[in-house]
């Protein structure tokens, strides 16, 4: 078994136009920076990207948006990206907005082999339009379908050569369930370690979900809102 690849470019070498990609990250936190750059360089187009946000104008997933590689975006909040708004209003970009918890659970359902789920979130709102609804235990619920992707791209703090992953603080966010619901999950890690070096009880994503892994480099770790207190 050899899941270790030499670079981000090698990791996305088989990516084709029209691919559906999950990208871990919350805003600019926990972004798979090396993989986003590699996809940008490769120039694949008509991508469907699923991520909570869409970066900022020129950072994170905003890089792929700027280069017009994204055909459709599935997200929960896109308020930080003016270029996104421009492309959407100009009809250049398809957008599907999901409540954040519904987005997370749809991905989880995709990875867990479920056919969907009923949720109270969004019942009676625009989100419910065209969806099956049912009253369960006295509450109105709407049916949401699972989400799957061709690729998941995530950044973890540590990973071993089998693909066991450990995240750090709030950089975890959507990445664990995204790893479970893609045909090919690629993890870039800040520290690539030998098998056996990770504490088994502390693994966030078990190796079975990860197909390719590599040591990332040159992390920028952009900060979107630098809020400080005076010491």
């Amino acid at each position: 078994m050899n899941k270790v690849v030499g670079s981000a470019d090698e990791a996305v070498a088989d990516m084709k136009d029209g691919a559906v990609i999950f990208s871990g990250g919350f805003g600019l936190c926990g972004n798979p920076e090396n993989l986003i750059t590699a996809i940008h360089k490769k120039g694949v187009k008509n991508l469907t990207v699923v991520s909570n946000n869409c970066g900022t104008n020129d950072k994170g997933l905003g890089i792929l948006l700027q280069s017009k590689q994204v055909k459709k975006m599935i997200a929960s909040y896109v308020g930080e990206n003016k270029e996104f708004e421009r492309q959407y209003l100009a009809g250049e970009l398809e957008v599907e907005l999901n409540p954040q918890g519904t987005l997370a659970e749809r991905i989880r359902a995709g990875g867990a082999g479920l056919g969907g789920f009923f949720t109270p979130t969004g019942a009676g709102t625009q989100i419910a339009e065209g969806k099956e609804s049912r009253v369960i235990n006295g509450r109105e619920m709407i049916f949401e379908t699972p989400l799957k992707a061709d690729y998941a791209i995530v950044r973890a703090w540590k990973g071993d050569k089998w693909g066991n992953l450990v995240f750090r603080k709030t950089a975890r966010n959507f990445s664990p369930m995204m790893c479970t619901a893609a045909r090919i999950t690629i993890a870039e890690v800040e520290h690539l370690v030998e098998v056996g070096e990770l504490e088994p009880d502390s693994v966030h994503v078990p190796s079975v979900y990860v197909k390719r892994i590599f040591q990332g480099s040159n992390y920028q770790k952009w900060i979107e809102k630098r809020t400080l207190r005076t010491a």
Partner: protein
Amino acid sequence: MPLTRSQIAARAARELKDGYYVNLGIGIPTMVANYVPKGIDVIFQSENGMLGIGPYPTEAELDPDLINAGKETVTEIKGTSYFSSADSFAMIRGGHIDIAILGAMEVSENGDLANWTIPGKVVKGMGGAMDLVSGAKRVLVAMEQVAKDGSKKLLKECRLPITGKKCVNGIITELGLYDITPQGLVLREIAPGVTPEEVQAACEAKIRISPELRTIAV
């Protein structure tokens, strides 16, 4: 005198009880964390996967891997835990968060809330708001009820697309504190120096005055 934004936040903070797990939205709700009553422990949840949010960091503590749901840098406290987005929203949807304090663009007299979109104007998305209002045990709105352009925000029915139906339990504004009841809006507390007539004039919805109406302590 109508309450200032800080005073609205301070009054909202007095709704917190010892042991509460709390989610705060952006704007006035974020300021609630500054006014937690002394002697009680409350734990703040952030929907990006954190329980136990601490204050903003010093320059030395700044960590790009540690942000709140508003994408601001924060710190952890003793007892903080981290988890995935799926776990975070299971926590929210599953009714484990005692109170969510949110901002609003409009609230109707039966508790419908609109705070996520203005059609044709802004494309931002609902983020976690729809999940929070459907899952938190109690939903409190903290906002200014008259917008800068003079338009009212406590309405008979929401005009904007709603975030949740009949989901708001209470509202705290610059003019008063309201409960949403089966009979509509009930004014339970009023800002000092403001008359019930002035409050009614600032609401499109008809308000009822609680027989035990009190003045908000500021």
